[in-house]
């Protein structure tokens, strides 16, 4: 009897133990909110999702969603820093960022290379199997987009971290040039390529994109938010301008700018200036003037302390933080910029200061961030014509008039308005400051021409030879990449 009871216990215990066995599937759970790398190229929708993912990443507010533009604008002489906050670019504005400046030097470097690697991983993955899923034609479209975004990222890096092309004709240190996707542990030490080498790669990427991107997309939104052939061409005009290769600027621009006014693109998306510039910056933000913009919405907001409208508008206007007002000695003081100029509608006054209100939407500050606008292409072409011919070029004047006249019909330039080519070039540069203010050109426009960075209240001018003329390299990069050198 007693023994039987023992057997019963042992039997029960054995049953219990077997019930407690390992639940093997629990040891390798499959995440329900992410996609495994093994299947990221397995369907057409995931592949297109990855293309959009590269855009979403370059849209990151640390890059073309806001901060790339802001950093360029506040390096110029038109904005006043009112907050002395390093998080919102005080060090950039005062030309004093350090290697460890997190929100500028470190973050832009990291984000740009994140986009570059995404593009590389995508390009590799398409070659390895993705092309077979979507077919050769679509694959080329997508790879074209990836390469264009990679080029944009490298271009943005060169503007901040490398000496301009004119200094030694591109022979100075550029940035590490990475063209294959990184997904795991490896030795990633890599020295900086020269400026010229990086520009060569940028142009190779853009040329590939030009040859492989679709001419147009199905609707205006996609034409503004996804790269098409004219996007690649427009970007090339900017890149050649930075290299001072004005002949190439003209060649590229002529592909999408008609010979005479009204200037329009005759193939691909029919880019043209809008009659009223303010419409370009209003919902739905998809006029044919916007070649590439970064879309925002309330469920796709730019994130705190990154938003264009938060930086440039005062609290009384849209709840912004008024990080930067317009410097009274800057372009706002230009006498030729008339009060009746339509672009003055995007300037407001608050608390005795003037502010740029190009991005007026408050709340989540969801105004789309402009990246390439047709007006820029026209100004690029105008400038290239003057600088390449070194004459008061008639088409340059016509292009300048197209920009000025659209907002200020009362001012009409003629060839006779300019004493010489330099005067016309100056007028075009002035027009850029007015037209493109807040869109990320001021800093790069100074450095590509070798102009000093201007003095500002409490800040000395920086000569083109000065160390502060460009940013230092990220200290994280210097610590972890032994082959990388500082500026």
């Amino acid at each position: 009897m007693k023994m039987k009871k023992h057997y019963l216990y042992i039997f029960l215990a054995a049953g219990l133990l077997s019930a407690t066995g390992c639940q093997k599937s629990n040891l390798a759970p499959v995440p329900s909110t992410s996609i495994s790398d093994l299947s990221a190229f397995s369907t057409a929708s995931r592949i297109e999702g990855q293309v959009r993912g590269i855009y979403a990443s370059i849209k990151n507010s640390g890059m073309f969603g806001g901060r790339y533009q802001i950093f360029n604008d506040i390096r110029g002489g038109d904005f006043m820093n009112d907050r002395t906050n390093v998080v919102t670019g005080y060090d950039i504005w005062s030309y004093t960022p350090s290697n460890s400046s997190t929100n500028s030097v470190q973050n832009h470097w990291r984000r740009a290379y994140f986009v570059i690697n995404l593009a590389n991983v995508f390009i590799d993955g398409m070659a390895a199997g993705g092309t077979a899923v979507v077919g050769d034609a679509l694959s080329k479209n997508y790879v074209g987009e990836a390469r264009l975004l990679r080029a944009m990222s490298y271009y943005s890096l060169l503007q901040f971290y490398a000496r301009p092309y004119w200094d030694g004709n591109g022979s100075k240190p550029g940035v590490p040039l990475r063209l294959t996707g990184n997904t795991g542990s490896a030795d990633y030490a890599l020295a900086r390529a020269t400026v010229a080498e990086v520009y060569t790669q940028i142009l190779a990427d853009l040329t590939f994109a030009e040859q492989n991107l679709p001419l147009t997309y199905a609707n205006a939104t996609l034409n503004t938010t996804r790269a098409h052939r004219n996007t690649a061409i427009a970007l090339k005009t900017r890149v050649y301008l930075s290299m001072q290769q004005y002949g190439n600027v003209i060649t590229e621009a002529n592909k999408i700018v008609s010979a005479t006014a009204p200037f329009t693109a005759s193939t691909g998306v029919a880019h043209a200036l809008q009659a009223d510039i303010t419409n370009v910056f209003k919902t739905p933000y998809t006029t044919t003037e916007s070649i590439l913009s970064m879309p925002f919405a309330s469920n796709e907001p730019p994130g705190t302390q990154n938003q264009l409208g938060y930086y440039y508008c005062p609290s009384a206007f849209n709840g912004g933080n008024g990080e930067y007002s317009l410097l009274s000695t800057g372009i706002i003081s230009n006498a030729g910029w008339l009060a009746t100029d339509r672009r003055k509608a995007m300037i407001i006054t608050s608390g005795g200061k003037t502010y740029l209100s190009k991005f007026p939407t408050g709340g989540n500050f969801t105004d789309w961030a402009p990246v390439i606008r047709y007006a820029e292409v026209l100004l690029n072409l105008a400038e290239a014509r003057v600088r390449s011919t070194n004459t008061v070029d008639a088409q340059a004047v016509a292009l300048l008039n197209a920009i000025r006249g659209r907002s200020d019909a009362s001012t009409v330039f003629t060839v006779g308005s300019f004493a010489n080519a330099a005067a016309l070039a100056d007028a075009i540069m002035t027009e850029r400051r007015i037209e493109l203010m807040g869109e990320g050109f001021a800093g790069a426009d100074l450095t590509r021409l070798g102009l000093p960075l201007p003095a500002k209240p409490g800040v000395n001018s920086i000569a083109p030879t000065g160390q502060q003329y460009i940013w230092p390299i990220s200290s994280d990069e210097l610590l972890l990449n032994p082959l990388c050198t500082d500026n």
Partner: protein
Amino acid sequence: MHMRKLLLTLTAFLLFAGSLLAQKTVTGKVTDDKGNPIPNASVLVKGTTTGTSTKADGTFSLTVPSNAKALIVSAIDMTTQERAIGSQTSLDFSLTQEDKTISEVVVVGYGTQRKKEVTGSIASVKGAAIANKPVQSFEQALGGRAAGVQITIPNGVLNAPPVFRIRGTNSLSLTSYPLIVIDGVPAYTGDFSGTSAAGNALASLNPNDIESVDIAKDAAASAIYGSRAANGVVFVTTKKGKAGRSRVTLDSWVGFTKTFGLPDLLDAFQYTDHKNEALVNAGTFNATTNAFALTNGPDGQPINTRWYDYVYRTGIQHSNTVSVSGANDATSYYFSAGYTDQQGIIRKNDFKRISVLMNIDHKAGKAISVGGKLQYSNEQNLAAVSSGSLGDAFATAGLGRVPLVTAPNISPYNNDGTYNYSGALIGVMGNKQGQVGFNNPVIQLDQNRNNSEINHVLANAYVQIKPVKWATLKSTFGLDYVFVDNEVYFSPISGEGFASNGSASSWFNKNKRWVWTNTVQFDKTFAEKHNFSLLGGIEQQKSDFVGYGLNRIGVTDPSFTDIQGGWQTPNTAGLGIGENYLYSEFGRLNYNYSGKYFLSGNLRRDGASQLGLNNKYGTFWGVSAGWEITKEKFWTGGLDKIFSSFKIRSSYGRVGNIGGLGNFQSLSTFNSGLYGGNGTVVFSNAGNNNLGWETSTKFDLGFNFGFLKDRITAEITYFKNDIDGLLLLVPQPPSAGLPSNIPDNVGTMYNKGVEFSLNATPVQKKDFSWNTSFNLTYTKNQVTSLAPGITNLTASTGGLETPSITIPGYAAGMLFVTRTQGVDPATGRRIFLDKNGRQVFFQHVAPSGQFRFAYADGTLAPTVSAADAVVYKNTNPKYVGGFDNTIRVKDFELNALFTYQLGFHIYFGTNAGLRDQRFWNNSTDILRKWKKPGDVTDIPKVIFGDNISNGSAFPLDVNVFKGDFIKLRTLSLGYNIPRNILEKARISTARFYISGNNLAIITKYPGPDPEVSSNGNGTINQGIDRNTVGNARTITVGLNIGF
């Protein structure tokens, strides 16, 4: 259940008593060996349930059947005594104090072991030592109580998890926090609040419900927890009922808490002059457009605001616990209910907890026992806004920083009584500046909410079967559920909610864990001397997490302050989902020969879901041996006259760590998002299929010995922990473009050191006794290698500055700062040392023809920055410990606990802010600034806008200070009300006390408190004091009553 049992017993007793005519009454008195009466002692007729307990004067009267043979008397902490009744009607008992060293047991994981037989390194802390303290969670009170244990209260925010280290920093990327096992269930640890209020999961446990805390430190003691044992294992045992009459206790205390050591700041007049001087020096002063100016307040006098007064307060705290417990032969029970309401030193930072605990154990028959526990708590962790102390050192709203930064010449209110603000920021009043502060703290404190409510259940149930005397089968099912309601509201008036026109977020986090443990244990003695104990078991642990919520912005009417009100835009908040699973098989064999030689072996095989596909399983083990030398014959020749006990023990083993590893971190995955309203797929995590455990190989050698009949006992232990396969999130050059640092088992580190503890009772008399205990732990931590190609790991504070570096050849988390060499007496410029050791003179605004950064000869020098930083000082305390003294004089009891940490440095980053030359207010030491050629001072010439000279832009050596401190952690004076008074009130014990926490501190550290950590439990960014709210000083009065 218990009541029914009691009734049945009672009824049976009455029936039994009534049926027997032959019975008699026995009376007597129970005393201790000094003749003091023992109340509440249990008096039982042997072999029956007939019994009673003694009164307050120790007497009893019991009717016993005539066939009763003997009485058994027992009392807490006393030896049990049995005396034959015979023909006597009066029997007195004199009980002796139980020799605790024989009966004392420690928890060892899946069981207990007699302390005498333990060969691993285990420190025990009694519940009484951590009860009734003004803390939120028990481990906050462990500091100084046990050798090898370092507790650092990181800040003055209520319910922030303390830094908890056992024998040093044992991991770099993973957690260094020990595994906490509460009543057999591995519990959730860490901060579970999603808001700016802290919410330590362990605060669920009312410290007054804790019976003991046993801390397993070496491989032998912890290996039974295999893969989670590398940081040590802390076994928490809650109270159970004890034999005898049921006991009711009431513990209450009330107190107040205040700040101490706040920096002295410039007042409005000093500030205004000082900042104007800085503007003049910068060449930008303009009285009408660029200047600082006083503003008159409503009383017509210049406004002079002490911002501390608006942010800090004297907090009132109280705590009350009631418990009922008892046990008879079959059933023991412990019920308690507690409520505590504590105000912190920061306004609106409150902690409220309702807790209940039920512990029941029941013998259902000869072979079967069942039991379980249910612990529930509701915690309200409240705050208005960020304190800037929970890893968010640079939060704009951070209340640690705001009172330091904000200009003292403005007021939180306009003269008409309305709030002073301009957009999101505080208004500048008369200052001709864009900004003279961040958010208006008064608006934030009045309007905003950052609350987190935690409902926490810890429960288990077990059945235990003993089919034969030497075998025990046990199955325990435990669960730990943590449900967190986070609620954040930012007012649209100003501050964080301004830009979005108000913001309300609510999100729910559900953490559910179950643990099912099945063990079998055999205990058998062969040939009377060979004692074996063999344990085998299987355990599964599953944890699931789900989080979801809503954020709404754009309030439609300012009266809506809840998520349910009227808002324009909905967004998601707090979305998350995850799971992990651990499957384990384990065993233990203990052997001892005649109580003289001890051997023990532990083995555990763990499989964890978080690890790489190719590396899910790991095997861990520990062996130990002990030798009780006093039992040897040769010892009795003379050494026994010196030593009353002497034991040598040693252990060796290999244990692991995965604490803090993400659920899916070993996988390479792509996440989804949106671009232009369409879905994206973005490479988001770089994984590693070979990811395995971090392993620690631990060696331990210890000596336990006693003198004078163990009135003095001491313990010396040498330990070494070699950690290899450190699971590093290996940083790659940012230009590699990887989405995340790749987890890999690379890198090695060791901790070695010596622990010493001494317990003594120098005086033990009837009316006067003195107990003292001292412990000291010396630890040396050194990283010996990192990943191939990775020369160092830097770590940031608050995401904005990088003052910490981990580099082979040094301890983890060294300070990494740029060197300075004072101030140039001729020009007042800050002198930096660049990476080549060359002096570089800095002036924020250089006159024309000069440079901001220049060599001594005036030529241009490259910009000095964080790239010139050097590995500077160690942040790991070399020595930590405590010194505890209890002196009893008659009914008074004085206790003083000192804790100390010595031999380490702190980066006082706050100091950089206190000397920042933007609009920020400065500490009064800025008045030492350089003014004219020849001035010899440590403060450079002040130039407005200068955030470089004093360390705001990048960390400097001038803000590194020695952190050594000795603290009077608690000082308490208690009074036990004499028995003769209590008897009249039918109370068995009553004690009043007054107690102070953090009353005194000896240190040269210039900040508020060197016991600080801006990065919480961070392992490679410790020793940082950046904008952190300092610790509180608390005084309480309390009462403990037992019925």
